[in-house]
């Protein structure tokens, strides 16, 4: 029984490795050839910290029940400003702070909790370490900031192609993910 368990775990790891290998070319598809996020670490933080809950997968944000999350595609913030915004949130808005101790032990925009008062931004559900903030800021700079309209390749590189979430971005020129999946099944 113990052996059986081991072998299924080994099989899982092997499967995961295959999945990573398979997803790599897909990830490259939507991005510039020299992808600066080869391990998808930045994208992983973007998902884990629920950035896409308001800014959406494409970073365009937009109005909604939670107010208007700013567009990361159209942002003019520098890397340093993005880093600080993630760490400290945006006072007076719904953008939460992601650094443990922000406005207490960590200086934010030169203010402490007292200074910021009623404008105190909400605390994020997940705190991020400096390295996490670093990789997600890189992800925003390299993969989102300055991009035009979201496209199919970008969407698939974010979600993979198991969901139909990207289908609306398909143009006639796009490879048909569904028929590709069908072909895969037929084999």
């Amino acid at each position: 029984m113990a052996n059986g368990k081991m072998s299924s775990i080994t099989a899982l790891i092997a499967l995961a490795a295959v999945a990573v290998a398979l997803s790599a070319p897909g990830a490259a598809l939507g991005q510039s050839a020299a992808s600066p996020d080869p391990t998808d670490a930045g994208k992983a933080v973007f998902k884990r910290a629920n950035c896409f809950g308001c800014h959406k997968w494409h970073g365009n944000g937009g109005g909604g029940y939670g107010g208007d999350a700013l567009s990361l595609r159209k942002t003019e913030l520098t890397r340093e400003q993005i880093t600080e915004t993630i760490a400290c949130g945006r006072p007076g808005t719904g953008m939460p702070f992601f650094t443990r101790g922000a406005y207490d032990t960590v200086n934010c925009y030169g203010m402490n909790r007292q200074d910021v008062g009623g404008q105190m931004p909400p605390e994020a559900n997940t705190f991020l370490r400096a390295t996490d903030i670093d990789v997600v800021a890189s992800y925003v700079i390299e993969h989102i900031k300055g991009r035009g309209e979201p496209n199919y390749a970008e969407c698939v590189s974010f979600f993979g192609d198991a969901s139909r979430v990207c289908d609306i971005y398909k143009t006639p020129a796009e490879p048909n993910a569904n028929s590709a999946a069908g072909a895969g099944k037929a084999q």
Partner: protein
Amino acid sequence: MTRFTNHGHLMRASVLATVVAAAGFAGALTARAADEVTHDRLLNADKEPGNWLHHHKNFAATRFSSLKDINRDNVKNLKVAWTMHLGGVEGGGIWTHGGLEGTPIVENGFMYVTDGWGSVYKIDTHGGQGVLAWKMDPKTDHDWAGGVACCGVDNRGVALWGNLVISHTLDGRLIATNKENGQVAWQRQVANPDKGEVITGAPLIVKNMAITGVAGAEYGIRGWLAATDLSTQKEVWRTFTIPGKGEPGHDTWKDDKNSAASGGGSTWVTGSYDPATDTIIWGVGNPGPDWDNQYRPGDNLYTDSSLALDATTGKIKWHYQHTPNDPYDYDSVAENVLVDVPGPGGATLKLALEADRNGFAYAIDRTTGKFVWGLPFVKKVTWTKGLDQESGKPIEYDPNKQVQRYNAAVTPHRENKVADICPGNMGGKNWPPTAYNPDLKLWYIPVIESCNRITVEESVPEKLKAREFWTGGGPSQPFKITGSVTAIDVTTGKVASKLETPFPNLGGILATPDLVFSGQPSGEVMALDAKTLEKRWEFNTGGGVNAPPMSFSVDGKQYIAILVGLGGAWDKWFIDATPELKRIQPGSMLYVFAL
């Protein structure tokens, strides 16, 4: 190891099936006939007091159970009989987790519940315990659906027809599952998430049709109701809630930007049915964009309306609009409760009751669609001074104006971009269902006592994109929000009593002869005296109550059941108004109580 375990399950299941088939063959036909859900049984659902066959208990949507073994004197002894953990907590799209908003359906001791992603669970409740008979996982496309679900990963439950369990999925499907074995018999795509359409409501079964409502008014949809023939699996009719060119009401969209095409008008709360006139009465949601009513001058029919449709053809018979040219997201998607009460001169008033997001409760003559009475059921209303006693329209409503301002000082618009309104945009009363006690003629409303702040963002056609928010602004929560259970005397149209609660009512109501059951998002399930609303019993589930209680009996014993798992819109968009609720963890649990 895993493989062998599964194999063992399969073996046992097939052996069991053989035994059941052999032993039950002779009696199978009769047993089956008794368990087939027919239109006749649905019409007479209240004659099966131990069962709960409809989403709202009966076609009239009263959510009144005549079971009274649990009553005001002994309810203090109510205890947990059994519980069951369900699934569907996982996130998808813009959502970090799912929640439970469903009403359990019970037939002959078997319960059918759903989780937020639309998995259906059949639970055998015989013998004082709950045993999972099967689970049907529809494999909902989480990111496709969750990316355009404005207000949570929700599914409000199933319906029964023939030997099938009829359910919806967030990704737009109507699914028929074999009641006995949990196998999907057939499914059909009714809504299209590519257009921002999702489904969260339970189906309404009328004759041989399943009626489906749609959500998505925050994503620029054009709302509809669709009837699917359950025998042929074909669509019988689809009626849009926003009239097309040439149809009556189209001229209430007076802009030159074709705003009607993305005008909203969702239908995501299950409606009711009046068999006497073969009429479906269904609430219609807000116009889109929600908060920029200058984008869509005109009354914007049939948004914010109660809509009556011929059940056979889907043709619109009448409408009653509550908030014309709505600038507040005050939808009227709520259920209409169909009740008959004595009127003046010995006449019988045939009413449709609706408690609106705008803070007013309405009684409409359900044969004509004419206003009978209306009153505020919340403590604070600022957007209007009140309703015109003849028409029921807000006093400030001016039919000659294309853009309504109501109480202009508090109304959000392009020149008054930040405005505080009461009730806030969640209501009033949201989807959590009311209940009606026909003996006491009291109607119980689950209330969100609220104000919130609206910030308007001017809409332009270029911003209208598939699967993107189309709201013309958004709310924020600078004010604490509480709640109440408010009882209305339907014979007088006056508030009879109000029990204030620390948190908004996000679950809804069950009425029994002398009790009212409800819950709080902070975890409590409670029983109140039906007349005074005095609290008689309370139990803390340890999760957030976001679903309505119901009652059933099995083996001659009465039970109260409720799903517990805070999800929905509240803990993403409105939690700042109830900071204490931030500590409530996502969960997915069925509680069943008995004496």
